[in-house]
């Protein structure tokens, strides 16, 4: 085959590649977040297996803190830690802000299977806490509607039972941590197995309120000093 023809043939081989490059990748955070939504579900609505939590609509600073916690080892999940390890604070903040800005419908609640008295006990803990054990009410920080509080406290509704159990367990074992003072670690370590079982049954069974957004601010000063609440 003459050399020129070979070159021409070789050139055409590379042509289709060049042609399909025509449509550029959108320069958006949504496009960049596709690296996250493979696990966290479409637009960060949570994965169907219940283990990768919803990201959409959570308070921005909460999400940013979690990304830093994974990067710096206060939370430990190899895949997450490795993904965020080479990224800058500024970029992680942008990604957190993107997911926080999404306003998407929530999945239906998971019907509870516990007897009513157990669920009533959970409700009591959530709304009143337990002064005898120095447990504040969940609502004191996570909002009266339990949908979280801006800018740094996540909601407790719209999450699967498995995920909630997993997180409280991780807090007890020290696998999940926050900046000191780590108030959730103290709370989780005070709760009994039965408490956690009842709480997560109750929380996962609640329908989202009419306004599912996080509250604008804490209604009163937080009952405990929490590192996660600092900027």
């Amino acid at each position, binding site marked *: 085959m003459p050399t020129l023809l070979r070159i021409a043939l070789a050139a055409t081989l590379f042509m289709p*590649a060049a042609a399909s490059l025509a449509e550029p990748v959108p320069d958006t955070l949504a496009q*960049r977040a596709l*690296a996250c939504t493979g696990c966290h579900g479409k637009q960060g609505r949570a994965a169907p297996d219940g283990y990768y939590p919803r990201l959409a609509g959570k308070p921005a600073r909460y999400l940013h803190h979690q990304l830093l916690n994974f990067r710096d*080892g206060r939370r430990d999940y190899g895949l997450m830690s490795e993904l965020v390890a*080479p990224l800058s604070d500024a970029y992680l903040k942008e990604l957190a802000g993107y997911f926080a800005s999404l306003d998407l419908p929530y999945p239906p609640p998971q019907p509870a299977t516990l007897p009513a008295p157990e669920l009533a006990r959970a409700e009591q803990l959530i709304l009143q806490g337990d002064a005898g054990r120095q447990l504040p009410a969940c609502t004191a920080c996570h909002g009266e509607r339990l949908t979280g509080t801006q800018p740094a406290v996540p909601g407790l509704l719209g999450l699967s039972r498995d995920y909630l159990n997993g997180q409280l367990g991780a807090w007890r074992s020290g696998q999940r941590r926050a900046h000191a003072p780590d108030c959730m670690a103290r709370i989780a370590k005070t709760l009994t197995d039965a408490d956690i079982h009842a709480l997560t049954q109750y929380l996962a069974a609640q329908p989202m309120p009419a306004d599912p957004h996080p509250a604008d601010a804490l209604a009163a000063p937080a009952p405990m000093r929490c590192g996660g609440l600092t900027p």
Partner: protein
Amino acid sequence: MKRLLVPLMALTALAGLAAMAAWGLLAWQRGLSDATPPAALSAAAPASVARGAYLAAIGNCAGCHTARGGAALAGGRPIPTPFGTVFSSNLTPDAAGLGGWSADDFWGALHFGRSRDGRLLVPAHPLTNTTLVTREDADALHAWLQAQPPQPAPRRAHELRWPFGTQLALAAWRALNFRPGVYQPDPTHDATWNRGAYLSQGLAHCSACHARRDALAGDGGPADFRGGLLTGLGWVAPSLLDPAEAGVQRWPADDVQRLLRDGHANGHSAQGPMAEVVLGSTAALNDADLAAMTAYLQALPVQAVTRPTGADPAPRRRERGAALYRDHCAACHGAQGEGRLDASGAQAYPALAGSRMVTQASPANLLRVIERGGFGPATPGHPRPYGMPPFAGVLDAQDLAALASHLRESFGHHAGEVDTVEVLRWRAATTRR
């Protein structure tokens, strides 16, 4: 009785000889010395501290000597090795670290690989590289380290299997692999090349990952860039000598510089441990040093790696891989593996056709990236990289083998197939999950 006495005496003599040999080996290694220049008088001068900061960045001291989320340079990071886990030491001027260390003490560690008390350092500290550092640079590093805030983080004992952590084993390793000596310029090359060689072989310790190590972690010295598996990490540091692996001999110099500085160049990006190196070290290189390192890397001799014969060809496996590619990969990497560009014309998602990560002799990095995804480093020159999601929960070992085989035998590649056994073997070599 008499009949027993002779063998007993022989045994005692032998044991005595062995003990003397061991003592001799230890004494030799602990007492290593050479024509060391004395500490520079101006070591504590501010200029020296600033210079030390720059050198510490090139050396990425903080990369190993900082625990994840811990105080800078306070040590405690676990370093996986084939012989167990080594914990990095505290470099801050605390009593638990380098508090009270003189410039001579520090020189002993950097140049002779021994601690202030004479203890031999484990070679996870890249002593074959740091011994090349000049006295002036060592003093500047010392001055900078002593100017850091002290952190009271206690030293954590290494967890090495017996006998690898013993002083005798370390002395034996050193007798085979370590000769102290400052970098000697090669008169057959110019000053730029020599500066690049000094940095690459010395402080930047490229060979700590890119050398090929034998079963006892011996390597071919600080200019050994033949490539090897990083134990416990599941990554391969590819050969810098082979342009089909990670050699840059045939790249435009500008691409090499951008890869080292920005972590991204022309569809190539630094991944995993190399992303860490870019962020912790090469991004800090000044223009002259960046050019010098580039010149040195581009002038490395070309030497092809031996390629293992791949798995037996299995058309069904490749068909399955092609289907997986269409479902999971083509949207970003293109139907023909051509990749996708962003609006500025830069490669947003890399082309897999012609990708060296796809066709490298070892499929380890390809498997690693498919399974665990990843971003290239976010650097000032490339602050918002696009990323790849992990497919760990989606693709099992058989799928990984199928997809890797498809990629290695498509788009004009003939890199060899990967079977499930190899994927499982690769996973087993990755202790940190």
